[in-house]
């Protein structure tokens, strides 16, 4: 694997609120912001942190299914809505299901590395509350193989896919052991989200989170091996940040202390028409992680904190294992012992993750990068983790489909 030919920095991040059920102000019967409002809010949130938007060279927008959720295609053409200076700039839309955000980061980094741009604006967005959950499930099922598996699939296609993974884990490692790990993952996600005013679960007031997380799965009401608390919610929102070269950083009037440096990444693609090799492992994710470690020259011991793609609690546990921070089958215990909490050994998803913060699918990878940026420059507010000098690295994993499209990216402080 090649090393980066020059430093690439990320800076000026912004997240909107993750909006949907759970937020006090959410009312499904009332009109809500759409793609336009979210893209504009996130883009302007970035622009407010730089000297002059004219210095942005290009725009990249990550989105999964606006064509179906919002009847809107041609999303690259929504980037100039952010500011007139973006009119006629080159813009690209990328899509890789729920891993679209990760692909957007990867695309922006490549653009800077190739000297095409010094300053690339990466936006990620999804607005999903436009349809009822039963139809949203159809749309999100597009992350799987439509012709190969949708017909025989479950009403709630993706929850059922991860329910199968949970079932396989119960069989391999024991129901009580894994279930407890999943319940603790849920509880931790909510506890972290309660510290983050933009999180969808910020207002969550459930007293006994572990008992809630332990709710036995009911296949008649939902899925065979997971309950509704194991799932991230339906979310609307957007995130944005800038990727820049050293010159680019100067051009926009920021310094390295405002930025983080990309030290490695891995992007891996699995064949959508094939079933996963092994339900108790995320093999594509593992490959992306290995590539990122190789490029950055570090291993799990140097990682300070994680941003993993817990679209389902079981996915969170499997991602943790894929990072190598814990061994195969060890994540449930690691989480139940509190080691992934904000003040734990390996703080994970400190702003709530997909289960707690929310999951505006196509924008989640972008949101993870923004949160890593904020952690490493000390601007994560009540969600701030302690960054130790011997472990200054933050890793994100952005996953599309059932471990099909996976981007892993590692960052460190720029100074």
């Amino acid at each position: 694997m090649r090393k980066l030919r020059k430093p690439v920095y990320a800076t000026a991040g912004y997240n909107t609120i993750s909006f949907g059920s759970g937020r006090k102000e959410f009312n499904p019967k009332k009109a809500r912001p759409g793609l336009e409002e979210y893209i504009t809010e996130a883009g302007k949130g970035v622009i407010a942190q730089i000297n002059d938007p004219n210095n942005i060279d290009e725009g990249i927008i990550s989105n999964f299914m606006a064509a179906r959720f919002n009847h809107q295609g041609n999303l690259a053409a929504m980037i100039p809505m952010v500011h007139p200076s973006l009119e006629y700039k080159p813009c690209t839309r990328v899509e890789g299901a729920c891993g679209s955000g990760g692909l957007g980061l990867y695309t922006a980094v490549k653009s800077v590395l190739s000297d095409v741009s010094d300053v690339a604006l990466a936006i990620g967005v999804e607005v999903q509350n436009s349809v009822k959950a039963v139809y949203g499930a159809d749309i999100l099922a597009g992350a799987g193989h439509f012709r190969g598996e949708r017909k025989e699939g479950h009403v709630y296609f993706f929850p059922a896919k991860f329910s199968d993974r949970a079932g396989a884990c119960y069989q391999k490692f024991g129901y009580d052991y894994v279930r407890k790990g999943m319940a603790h993952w849920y509880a931790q996600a909510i506890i972290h989200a309660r510290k983050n005013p933009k999180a969808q679960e910020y207002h969550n007031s459930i007293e006994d989170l572990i008992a809630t997380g332990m709710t036995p799965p009911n296949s008649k009401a939902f899925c065979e091996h997971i309950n509704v608390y194991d799932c991230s919610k339906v979310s609307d929102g957007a995130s944005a940040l800038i990727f820049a070269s050293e010159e680019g950083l100067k051009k926009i009037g920021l310094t390295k202390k405002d930025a983080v440096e990309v030290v490695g990444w891995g992007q891996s693609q699995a064949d959508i028409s094939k079933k996963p090799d092994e339900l108790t492992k995320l093999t594509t994710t593992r490959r992306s992680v290995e590539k990122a470690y190789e490029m950055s020259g570090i291993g799990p011991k140097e990682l300070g904190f994680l941003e993993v793609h817990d679209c389902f609690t079981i996915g969170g546990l499997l991602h943790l294992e894929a990072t190598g921070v814990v061994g195969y089958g060890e994540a449930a215990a690691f989480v139940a012992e509190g080691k992934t909490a904000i003040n734990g050994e390996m703080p994970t998803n400190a702003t709530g993750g997909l289960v707690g913060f929310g999951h505006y699918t196509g924008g989640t990878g972008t949101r993870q990068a923004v949160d890593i940026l904020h952690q490493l420059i000390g601007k994560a507010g009540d969600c701030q983790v302690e960054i130790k000098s011997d472990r200054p690295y933050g890793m994100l994993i952005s996953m599309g489909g059932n471990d099909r499209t996976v981007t892993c990216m590692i960052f460190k402080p720029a100074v």
Partner: protein
Amino acid sequence: MTFDDRLKNVSIVGAAGKMGSGIALLLAQEMVTQKLKPENKNQIYRLHLIDVNESALDGLQSYLKSQLVKAGEKVTGMLRELYKEHADLIENYDVIDAFVNDAMSVLRLGTDLGAVKDSKIIFEAVLEDKDLKVSLLKNMEKMVSPDTVYFTNTSSIPISVLNKDANLGGRIIGFHFYNPPAVQRLVELISPESTKPELKDMALEMAKRLRKKIVPSNDIAGFIGNGHFLRDGLYAIREAKKLAGEYTLPGALYAMNKVSQDLLVRPMGILQLIDYVGVDVYQCISVTISGYLQGEDLKDDLLAKMTQKKVLGGQFADGSQKNGFLKYEKNRPVGIYDADKGEYKMFDPNGWSGEIDKKLGAYPQGFYPWRSLLMDPKKGEKLSAFFKNLNASDTPGAKLAKGYLKNSKSIGEFLVKTGVAKSAQDVNDILLNGFYHLYGPINDYV
């Protein structure tokens, strides 16, 4: 002929009304589910929806379509299974859409009563008017085959009277849905001796198919549900009249409505419930029941006056509440009818209604509104504690509530004593399941 064979051709007469439309939705769902079973692949299913009101039939069609979509969204897993052989129906949207289309294709809407001729089961849900019902039944008898059976949704007319007057030979049973039929789980089953035993079995099977809970009632006018509701409502109106000197009549009606909702922990006040059912329907039930029972006066001049002045309650086509005893804005009561002036007196928390609230006194400790207790697993304990405190309280509000509770209990006991209900449990079951009360009227709270 099996029950499933009968279910292939069913009619609802009075289908566009409030009860008929709900019954239509339930039957449409059951019939299309049968139709979609592989073993019934080439069978034809017909649900005839008949009503005299042509424009209401248009509304019925739209209502059924939108409700079938909602129903399909709730059983999408079952639909995916039912349509699994259809390679072209892949997404949830596809199977829900197919389900709605298949269900709509079962329906035949029209004004012609002749459509009933091939039906083996006929639901009768027309106005609560004995002469109308009898004449309709007689007309249908001329057209249908001799093994056709009738399910009547009458809420007050004795079934044996309809059977005798229309000369049906025991082919009619009382199958009384609660409003709205698609939501309320209760069906009051009235099966007098005249009813053929096989029809009772059919009714039990029908209840099972429509996922309804059956509570039997004897064939005495008003049955259990309206037997209690009518007397309960009349008690409130008559108490209000007694209190009129002190509170004014609108003020006293306001007080009784409030006490019956809050201090009796019911889903709505008694006058709001009468409005929901319809003042005219309520009046009609009171006249009907009075006609069959001796020695008890169940008519009221205020009801007659309101009906005459067309202050009727009931709902608009969109489901929102019409004004009756109470005036509504966004379905919330905002005023009370002053029958003498023929106008509404708006609630005024800083004026007259606030004064009455004060006069009724503070609520006893342990008070929770109905809604907050509905899903509470400890509601039994909480209600016991609250009613204990209510008994110990002597505020004017508590006194009215205690009188109300005692009267409600004595109505329940009267229904058992006079043989309308077979047991106290049946009375309580009706109020719990048909009226969404949190406790039965026959209790130890008073």
